[in-house]
């Protein structure tokens, strides 16, 4: 009897000692299940909560790379672990969530394993044995599909491309250690690494990370440096905060918050751009948002033209009023 070989899909899961898995990882696991048998890979010891989530996602096998003293923060070192795991489980596909660092890990993994590479896809499907990834390009004006022509594939998946769902049947999530010998490239040294504090508002509400948030409220030059209204609406919506390069250049907010071609590329469910003209550099980084809302004094601003809904007026009035309306609606719903 001949059996069709089941594709092994290796998903790199970022894991910290104390936090649960983030939603992009759960989205990647959800997609991975549709393409084959999923094996999760972590570069540090997975915590209890993460293992529960992996089990819920239907994962039976969790590889924990043991890199010894090698600096796993260096993408080439992480890629050595991914490549070792690819060999160990004979994975035909490696799935990572799209982030700056993961793109670098993906590139090095693909180079080492002879795999084809797709970056920032929003869909990935098996088309008669070939993997085909979908991606929207040129500021949302073209839809493209790209097929992998090699036996192996490395793919990064954009956050929010699909909804994370638990598996029909839970997996065992058994951890297996995988010793990996890797070292930083000769001549390269990580001198310093600072993880930024997650921003929290006065009541201690932690905002979601920009790259993976379902709702983003972005403020540009039109804020004139006052991000209070932007933060107010973001907090009412549980949204992340984004910005333009001009606001970063002005020193109003850190580069981390910059959305666009040389900033973070986002694809949230809702993007609200306040005091942002919508220059192509910015537009290219947020056009994949499902719903685009503009708040601008200028009805001719390019962002208004590409929006689904726009309010023409001063953001300093409109955002706080919108935040208040949302809060009072919530309070009313809670009382009824």
């Amino acid at each position, binding site marked *: 009897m001949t059996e069709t070989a089941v594709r092994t899909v290796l998903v790199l899961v970022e894991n910290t000692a104390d936090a649960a898995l983030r939603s992009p990882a759960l989205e990647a696991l959800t997609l991975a299940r549709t393409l084959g048998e999923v094996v999760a890979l972590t570069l540090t010891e997975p915590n209890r909560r993460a293992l529960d989530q992996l089990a819920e996602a239907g994962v039976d096998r969790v590889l924990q790379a043991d890199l010894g003293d090698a600096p796993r923060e260096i*993408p*080439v070192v992480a890629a050595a672990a991914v490549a070792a795991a690819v060999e160990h489980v004979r994975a035909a596909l490696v799935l990572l969530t799209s*982030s700056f*660092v993961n793109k*670098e890990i*993906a590139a*090095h993994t693909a*180079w080492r394993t002879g795999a*084809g*590479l797709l970056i*920032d896809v929003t869909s990935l499907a098996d088309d008669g044995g070939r993997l085909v990834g979908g991606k929207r390009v040129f*500021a949302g*004006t*073209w*839809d*493209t*599909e*790209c*097929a992998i*022509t*090699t036996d192996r594939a490395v793919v990064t998946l954009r956050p929010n491309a699909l909804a994370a769902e638990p598996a029909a049947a839970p997996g065992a999530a058994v951890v297996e250690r995988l010793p990996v010998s890797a070292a*930083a*490239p000769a*001549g*390269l040294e*990580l*001198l*310093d690494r*600072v*993880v930024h504090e997650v921003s929290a508002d006065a009541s201690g509400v932690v905002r979601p*990370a920009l*790259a993976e948030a379902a709702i983003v409220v972005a403020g540009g030059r039109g804020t004139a440096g006052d991000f209070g209204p932007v933060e107010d609406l973001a907090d009412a919506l549980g949204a992340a905060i984004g910005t333009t*390069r001009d606001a*970063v250049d002005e020193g109003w907010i850190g*580069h*981390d918050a910059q959305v666009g*071609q*040389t900033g973070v590329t986002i694809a949230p*469910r*809702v993007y*609200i751009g306040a005091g942002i003209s919508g220059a*192509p550099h910015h537009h290219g980084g947020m056009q994949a948002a499902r719903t685009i*809302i503009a*708040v601008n004094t200028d*009805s001719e601003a390019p962002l*208004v*033209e590409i929006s*689904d*809904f726009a*309010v*023409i*007026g*001063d953001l300093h*009035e*409109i955002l706080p*009023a*919108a935040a208040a*309306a*949302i809060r009072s*609606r919530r309070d009313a719903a809670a009382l009824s």
Partner: protein
Amino acid sequence: MRIVVCVKHVPDLQSTRGFTAERRVIRSADDGTMNEVDENAVEAALALVAAAGDGEHEIIALTLGPDVAADAVRRALQMGADRGVRITDDALAGADYFGTATALAAAIRRIGDVDVVLTGMAALDGLGAVVPSLLAAALNLPQLTVVQELTYSGGALTARRELDGVTETLRATLPAVVAVTDLANTPRFPKFKDIMAARAKEIEVFGAAELGLADAASTARTEVVRAEPRPPRPEPEIVTDSGAGGRALADYLISNNLI
């Protein structure tokens, strides 16, 4: 110090961008430019040479692409690069990330004795941002990528990068691959006399065979199978604020089940 700066000719962001029937990016001289962040890479090369001080220096602008791609090299020459090289061959048309990195790495090896390979952080057409990493892999060199601040002293490069909620400082000895962001510096605007001088410079051309490359198909690992323009977006719903704009925004979010 010998620096190779990789530059790319891309369709201007303001132009109507699209694909040919062969599903390749339309590139024309009229509405194409040097990838803007590559100007930051050229500027970074000039700054490195200045920081390295006395000694022999050479900055070589390198591109892969058809005839129009020479414009990108020309721009780098105007900014102050000493030499221009263009890899071109019909066999290499439609190269993917691997095809591109393989060809650029082969040219860099052929140029020889290169201390620093500089690039922009991403090409503003494809936005993959992986070619710098692939170049480092192909050349087996340490990489400093997404660099916002670059300094050179004591024979080593120090870079600060801010990404994914982390700020890192890395140090690399030469040779190394470096990819800079648009925040790394402010690119100079060439002076008229530099524009004229660049005009006279010959751009060397490397073919695939000279570089020991077979063709794009043998290095490519992906193939674009579909490229379609999207229908234009529907007209936006526009509300002009006269006191109730904030409420209208909240209503829109609530009534469309967006929150």
